[in-house]
């Protein structure tokens, strides 16, 4: 897979290329350059650390949308067993911008296996896939499928984990015709009301109402380089600043990063990402998410359904 770099990552390219060259050279077996590779890798990692120490909100927004960033199904593949995807809202169609199903969360200790319902937004990787997933922008059917699954989870007393990664709910003709507003409102209502633990994790883009619909968990966590906002920086720049060149400024004003929102007490925790972002090491990123799920559900499971429902109501009435 071709490596893709964001603007601010450009200084890393040269070192990455050198390392690649040396690795190819090494394969030929003529001279041993292992030490040099190690040196360069250390140098590169330090450079990445330095760059990431100082990245701003706009760079983090770009990372949250990185074309190689792991999506919901990537995490599901890495952290679950026996995932069985369920489809359709039983009313109109199956929205592929939302995926959901029951599974076990892998537990390295080999002991008790945690059953969960995972529901998340799903983006596509290549052009065809992106179209099929509608760029992770659900129609009402996606939200209604989610409601159906939330209710099923409640029926079986299975905890719910939502993975949030959407630019927003789809602004289209059919979506409006079939009640996008009602679908989002009812999803918030349903997820607040279910009598099981709910854990919401923002893994990429948390775009407005389309994200909030899955975001009313007892605990709300964000991956280190994800964002969560009422409007995209581009939208904010165009509507409020009346100047699209003010996107970076808007991203600062909106306080949309995990660090910002943890500081504002809007989220409960930050899940660390590997050096350079989740896409640099999917396995490690997944494992951090897996641990966060085990830890938080372990805590939430101590409470009965009614208490959990009231806890969510209380939590969201405090803002």
């Amino acid at each position, binding site marked *: 897979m071709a490596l893709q770099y964001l603007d601010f990552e450009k200084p890393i390219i040269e070192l990455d290329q050198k390392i690649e060259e040396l690795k190819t050279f090494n394969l030929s077996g003529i001279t041993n350059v292992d030490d040099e590779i190690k040196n360069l890798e250390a140098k590169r990692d330090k450079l990445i650390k330095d760059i990431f120490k100082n990245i701003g909100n706009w760079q983090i927004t770009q990372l949250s949308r990185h074309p190689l960033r792991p999506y919901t199904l990537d995490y599901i593949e890495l952290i679950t067993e026996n995932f069985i995807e369920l489809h359709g809202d039983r009313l109109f169609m199956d929205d592929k911008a939302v995926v959901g199903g029951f599974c076990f969360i892998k537990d390295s200790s080999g002991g008790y296996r945690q059953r969960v319902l995972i529901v998340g937004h799903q983006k596509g990787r290549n052009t065809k896939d992106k179209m099929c997933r509608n760029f992770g922008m659900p129609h009402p059917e996606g939200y209604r499928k989610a409601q159906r699954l939330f209710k099923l989870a409640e029926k079986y007393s299975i905890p719910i984990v939502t993975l949030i990664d959407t630019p927003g709910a789809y602004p*289209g003709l059919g979506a409006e015709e079939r009640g996008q507003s009602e679908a989002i409102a009812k999803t918030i209502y349903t997820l607040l009301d279910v009598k099981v633990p709910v854990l919401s994790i923002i893994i990429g883009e948390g775009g407005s109402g389309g994200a909030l619909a899955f975001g009313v968990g007892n605990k709300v966590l964000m991956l280190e380089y994800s964002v969560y906002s009422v409007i995209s920086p581009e939208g904010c720049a165009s509507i409020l600043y009346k100047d699209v060149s003010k996107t970076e400024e808007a991203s600062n004003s909106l306080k949309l990063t995990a660090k910002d929102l943890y500081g504002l007490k*809007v989220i409960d925790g930050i899940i660390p990402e590997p050096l350079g972002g989740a896409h640099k090491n999917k396995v490690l990123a997944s494992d951090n998410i897996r641990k966060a799920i085990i830890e938080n559900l372990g805590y939430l499971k101590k409470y009965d359904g009614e208490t959990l429902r009231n806890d969510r109501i209380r939590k969201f009435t405090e803002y």
Partner: protein
Amino acid sequence: MLLFKSKNGKKEQGKLAIPEGLWIKCPSCSEIIYKKELERNLEVCPKCNYHFRINADRRIDIIFDEGSFKRLFEDIMPQDLLDFTDTKKYKDRLKEDSKKTGLTDAVISGEGTIDKIRVAATLFDFNFMGGSMGRVVGEKIAKTFEYAIQKKLPVIIFSSSGGARMQEGIFSLMQMAKTVAFVSEFKKVSLPYISVVTDPTTGGVSASFASLGDVIIAEPKALIGFAGPRVIEKTIHQSLPEGFQRSEYLLEHGMIDMIVERKDIKNTLKNLLLLLVNE
């Protein structure tokens, strides 16, 4: 005698100036209406039935029994938690709109009677930052439900809003969750929550409490939807059908219960309350 004056006081060339004085032009049918007559007709065009947008105070006059409406929760004041500045400081916008409307934020909440039936209500005022929902709006709606639970009253919310207040960032988004949480709490008491949607009701308001009424009533031809029509046009690169996202379109697609003209809303609310409130 100057009968027609444009809004900014300057004569506009080539088109009919919009009068500010005694006469007003209907934006829908261009009829020139005598202002007093428009008032008598509840700000509805006598020729084409276009419902002009009205402020919260005027709606209180129209809906509630005379002198019955008591404002509540007036001490909740807006805060600029994010220290937000776009082309203007958010603090300055608040001051300006407060001066313009005489309100502290975009809603009035309180208790009043409709044909002697007591109700708790919140009414949006579109003139205050486009009726946008920030923490004050969310809190007043929350308090309205809370008050109604305590006093065992039905709730009516009259919406007119562009959606979430972007200047309050994530906190405005959280008001969607907050208001929905109170709709959920309100089901404890078996009393009606009626949502009246007026022109326009979009975005975070439409996608939260406003779409969750036990009964949803719309004024004629009100724009109601999640995304604004311009955003949709830009996204799908095609023009939208006539009447798209208007009340009549929503009724046809099963999204609202009824369309009621302004002159009939009070009576409709009364009849609904008589049926749904168990004494």
